[in-house]
């Protein structure tokens, strides 16, 4: 089997990715930035810039392990209502936010310059948006070269993943989050991160139906029945996993699904669906693990 060596190769690639930003960290006096938008925070960290405040830091650390958030970053409250007094106390130069943050807290503009992180998904998909975000944030903090390096390294990593997967069966893949009663699922469709990463890996997204602005749709299990040739990958939420598994085991409909019967069903690690390039890389790794397993 080639699997162990493949895994080691992946680890090496990740290490390569981490290298340029470690080298460039701490060059000039950094601007004081707070990131309400996690994608913005992720981009900053990937560029080697540490923000002084991020929304909901403990959940960020849990959810976005890599690149890690330094321990001294201040928690500025949840993204739906950050603490304005605290932000004012931080004497910020810049706030990275999403449009919706400004809707809920228009007064942000009186605290510091608000930079809106790009969020319109281009026709090329969500991965391209990740690149745009990274370049955008890099230009903001004057780290264009680092930004380009990060994107280039990520592109290389994804291409190698695709090459490594070229011998496996190219079945369409559902990436979904089943409801705890097993009757509905949130499925990732066009314009979602899984869709973009699957495309990069050379796989088709089995769900091509209508989605909302966030690229997801809620479907009943019966939708899955129309795609007997697909594989099903479920997002793993540890505390809900047992319920999901027992609901699926008890449901005649689930058990009749061809992918379930053929064992083409697995769990992928939880990912941040609205993330940029670093999130895409993490998702790619866990997808690759599952796709090589089920192939």
């Amino acid at each position: 089997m080639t699997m162990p060596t493949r895994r080691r190769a992946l680890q090496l690639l990740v290490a390569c990715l981490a290298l340029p930003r470690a080298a460039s960290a701490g060059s000039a006096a950094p601007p004081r930035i707070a990131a309400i938008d996690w994608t913005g925070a992720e981009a900053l960290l990937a560029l080697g810039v540490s923000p002084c405040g991020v929304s909901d830091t403990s959940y960020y650390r849990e959810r976005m392990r890599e690149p890690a958030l330094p321990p001294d970053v201040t928690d500025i409250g949840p993204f739906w209502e950050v603490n304005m007094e605290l932000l004012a106390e931080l004497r910020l130069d810049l706030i990275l936010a999403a449009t919706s943050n400004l809707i809920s807290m228009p007064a942000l503009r009186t605290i510091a310059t608000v930079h809106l992180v790009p969020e319109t998904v281009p026709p090329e998909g969500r991965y391209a948006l990740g690149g745009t975000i990274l370049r955008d944030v890099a230009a903001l903090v004057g780290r264009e070269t680092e930004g380009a390096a990060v994107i280039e390294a990520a592109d290389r990593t994804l291409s190698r993943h695709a090459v490594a997967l070229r011998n496996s069966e190219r079945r369409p893949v559902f990436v979904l989050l089943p409801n705890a009663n097993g009757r509905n699922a949130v499925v990732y469709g066009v314009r979602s991160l899984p869709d973009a990463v699957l495309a990069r890996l050379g796989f088709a997204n089995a769900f091509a139906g209508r989605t909302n602005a966030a690229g997801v749709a809620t479907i009943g299990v019966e939708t899955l029945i129309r795609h007997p040739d697909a594989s099903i990958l479920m997002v793993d939420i540890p505390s809900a996993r047992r319920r999901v598994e027992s609901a699926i085991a008890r449901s005649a409909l689930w058990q009749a699904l061809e992918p379930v019967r053929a064992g083409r069903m697995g769990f992928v690690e939880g990912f941040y669906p609205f993330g940029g390039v670093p999130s895409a890389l993490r998702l790619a790794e866990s997808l690759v693990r599952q796709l090589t397993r089920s192939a």
Partner: protein
Amino acid sequence: MTTVAQGARIRPALGWLVLLVAVTLGLCWQGLDKTLPADRWLQALFHPNESDPAELLFRQSALPRLVMSLLAGGAFGVAGSVFQHLFRNPLADPSLLGVASGAQLALTLALLHAPGAFAFGPEPVAWAGAAAALGLVFLSASRQGFSPSGLVLSGLLVNLYLGAVAGLLVLFNHDFLTDLLLWQAGSLTQSGWSGPLTVATRLTLFAAFLTALHRPMHLLELGDASSRALGLGVSGLRGFLLVAASLLVASVIGSTGLIGFVGLAAPHVGRALGVGRRAYDPKGAALIGALLLALVDQVARELSALVGEIPTGSVVAVLAGPLLLVLLSRLPRERTPPASAATARINGSPACSLGALVAIFLAVLAVALCAARMRSGWSIDLTTQWPLIRDWRLPRVFAAAGAGASLGLAGLLLQRITRNPLASPELLGVSQGAGLGLILAMLLVPSPGTATVLAFTSAGGLAALLFVLRLGWRRDRDPSLALLAGVAVGGIASGVTTFFLASGDPRVAILLSWFSGSIGRVEGAGAMALVLCTAVGLGLMLTQHRNIDALAIGKTVSASIAFPHTSVTIAGLVLSAVLTAAATITVGPLSFVGLMAPHIVRLMGFRVAFAASLAVALVGASLLVVADWVGRNASYPWPISAGLLTTFLGGPLMLAMMLKRAR
């Protein structure tokens, strides 16, 4: 004979009933036929071919879903009928006694912290939650001998309380947002027969109880005193049936999630269509409930083909609302809701003086402005921190005070006008309308600014309001109808909202936070405008205090002493609507204050409108300022929304006062 006369009255409605049945059956047939051609149905049922996907869908998905919609609708309908009969209140709903919120909270808690509790499915968890909520309601209502208004109030209180806790849990666990929200939205999708089977057995059992208790139930129509005189144990019967109906509802929503409105709408629709000739007709309500939910579910299924899966619960709310509105005009005139103590006694001196309330308010204001947690810890520094306080803390505190006062005043007016202890600002549909406006702003405008958001929320709130006032204002100008119309309009708006919430959009949390009523985003100008608006409203009420007091004498007497009852009522409704809109647009919907502040003031002993208006403004303002202060500091830097906190702070206070007075 009466049948002849009734037959003549019923005939046009019968046409509607036939149409309802025909449309429902047609849609069901079409839906099933699309899954599997009709000529293969029998074969699929009796000689199933396990590997044929179309047959599988027919047998394990489409058919159970249809059956589930009929059963769940029947269960909601019959429970709603029983509730409305027992409470003698046309606004009574199976979720009224905390059943739905209790079940919801238990399921949420179990999902987040004890997944093992689901070993036997969601039903026992939902039951436990519903039973606990019911126990709380009964505990507080028992001292009033389970009188309808006492029960309704206690139920409302517990509902708000549990809803607030569940809201917090949802907000703090975004990983589960879609799951929890989808459950809240109510979905009838099935993947097998376990759901329909569960509901079927529970419904059969309940129907058996109800049949056995047929005679005593009808006796209740005579009123408590007469029933008692005839030897009926009124409290026992009421208590038993309420528990049974609540458990039935908990079973259904444990399986489908929250589907509101059917229980409220079915008895009314049934009566309007002439299915039930009497006010109390559980069979008719069950039939209509089943038909309604099946129809709505089929419509949801048809729509799903166009825009992606739509939770049935939100379609129920959107469709049942207009249906209820149309049928309001056909509704036989309801008994006037029981006159509450709010209007029963006007004399009597207050237990605490207005001066004391002013002092409390000022003290609260001072603490809220000076003391706060900051980056370095607690700070009571007014001088060096002044710029921060001026720019950020002052507008917040003012907005809190303004919103609390205006909602309190609006609630006081509404309760006086309608003489219904349930009357509260959010029943006018303003909050939901404004929320709908906010969603539209987020969906339609790429990056809406403050002015856009304000314009959309104001327009939404006012549109809902005008609609309610216009529709509720027909037929004998009964103010309760305005409230019922408000419930319907609010339902429509919240249906759309829930759909948006359950769609998995990342902006959901922002909307949720707005809906929980949060003051953190207020700007100086908005706060000032709100305070100004409140001051004008209070001034109006103080100058018109005699007219407000005179509302209590009722319409019939008013005419004989030339008191302009109708104009005063209209003016009062408009004023309360404007006050509600002002508060809602600035800080989001805060349901508890408008409902409870007038009750607290009444329990304190303020009866005369002049003193009561001042007191309610002070109590409302103090409540909200305290809530905002606690919310800012309790889990710094995280906010806990003031709307949730007023429920925590005011709830126990209210409960204690109710118990004390009832003794």
